[in-house]
């Protein structure tokens, strides 16, 4: 391979990596907004509609809020660049935001637009230099990029706190499972007019999400009596899930809600086997 071809290939690979990063960033940010809106509007999930790459000038993520008395359109443009400018004229960010604003004014519906950036310097620069005509309806938001969705879950405090509000358990592995389920469910749609209720139903259906339930749930009396008699074994119901500890070494939890058929089957097995020690019980609860 000659020098020129090598340079071309390097640039092509770099371009691919940048595209991949941009794609991962968009999906991770969509997850973040999904978490925010599920926390804020848990009673109105069918009235929050997510779309991506919709028709418009600001098109990375579009959220239509149809909650009565709070209807609005929210547009997001995402940038992971290390250098960014508002620019002038067609094709510039300034032009795109201006055109989106003009379109929305004609629709006579409340709206807001967001420029979401990952870089600290870009964030400060774009805030300082925002054109006067855009100031009323454009916000600059910083959403850092931690390199992967896993890292966001573990180390992005705001992201983690949001996930923790929806997850029955606060361990990173459970938060990671919940967020990945949201990511997978959103990623599996065509991303056109998807109500949050559809995403949450999909997440529940996957069965590894540890999505917190607010419904009161209890074990059957007989199950509770058997478990209470086992030396060193403690248990409770956390966010709808069975959580247990044994001695100071063992702990675990079910991935099924206590009121689910799967967990009821486990209860049936506990009642039928009537374990007297943790060693006897462990085989039964290891499959949940």
């Amino acid at each position: 391979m000659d020098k020129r071809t090598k340079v071309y290939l390097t640039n092509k690979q770099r371009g691919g990596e940048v595209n991949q990063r941009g794609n991962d960033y968009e999906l991770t940010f969509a997850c973040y907004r999904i978490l925010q809106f599920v926390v804020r509007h848990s009673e109105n999930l069918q009235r929050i509609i997510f779309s991506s790459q919709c028709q418009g000038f600001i098109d990375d993520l579009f959220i239509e809020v149809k909650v009565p008395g709070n209807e609005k359109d929210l547009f997001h443009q995402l940038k992971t660049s290390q250098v960014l400018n508002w620019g002038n004229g067609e094709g510039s960010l300034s032009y795109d935001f201006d055109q989106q604003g003009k379109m929305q004014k004609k629709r006579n519906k409340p709206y807001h637009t967001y420029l979401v950036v990952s870089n600290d310097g870009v964030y400060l620069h774009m805030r300082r230099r925002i054109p006067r005509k855009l100031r009323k309806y454009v916000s600059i938001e910083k959403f850092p990029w931690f390199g992967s969705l896993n890292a966001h879950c573990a180390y992005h405090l705001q992201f983690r706190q949001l996930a923790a509000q929806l997850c029955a358990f606060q361990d990173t592995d459970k938060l990671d499972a919940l967020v990945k389920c949201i990511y997978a469910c959103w990623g599996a749609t065509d991303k056109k007019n998807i109500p949050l209720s559809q995403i949450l139903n999909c997440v529940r259906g996957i069965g590894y999400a540890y999505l917190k339930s607010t419904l009161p749930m209890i074990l059957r009396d007989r199950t509770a009596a058997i478990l209470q008699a086992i030396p060193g074994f403690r248990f409770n119901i956390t966010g709808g899930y069975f959580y247990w500890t044994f001695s100071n070494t063992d702990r675990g939890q079910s991935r099924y809600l206590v009121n689910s058929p799967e967990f009821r089957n486990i209860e049936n097995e506990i009642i039928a086997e009537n374990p007297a020690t943790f060693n006897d019980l462990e085989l039964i609860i290891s499959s949940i």
Partner: protein
Amino acid sequence: MRKLTTYAQHSDQVRGLLEKLIDKSTDEQQYAASFYELGRELFAELLQKFTLRNSKVMLACSSEDADWLSKGILDKLNESHIDTKLAVFWNLRVNLNNDANLAIAPITKSYIEQTDKVDYLIICKSIISSSCVVRTNITYITETIDPAKIFVVSPVLFEKAIPNLKSEFPFKISSKFEFIYFAEDDEINESHEVIPGIGGSVYKRLGLEDSFKKNRYIPTIVKERRSTNFEANK
């Protein structure tokens, strides 16, 4: 294409054990025994490079590795009179949407011996490919303990495993990683298995069936040590 480390290149024993894993005619007992011996060899290499004398060590693994690879390391730690605590995790390993980039490995159950201090964490795994299980377990442990070094120990790694794993952690954690391994492979098949790797799915080769059914297996080293711990804490 497989690349052997210098240690493996100079050891007939290690190369023979790696070949046994690949060989489909190796039965369950021989397969498990090979992992046990590889655990001993991996720890011998670790000791050639680092001194663990007078230190407190935590050895962490997944349940399916506990009685073989991990036991080999644990026996060598005991023979070296190193104060060791054991942590075993039952991970539920799933690729969401059948996409390896959407791998999760939530911990459904854990056995962790209590300690006030850990100088070195040794985390072992039969093979490290996507790093999902290892990443999950290191994250879990390092949220409560702060070891000076984290030894990631495995007979076989996929070629991108080291940079992939490092990229998942902030520098203050990834800078503690030391990788001890014997072979690096660069091929993956449609079932997301490294080729030649460890000769297929470790669950199936050990007779533990799949990612779900293997979680019903309670390792003997857990049963033995838990019993001692429980009696001591009574």
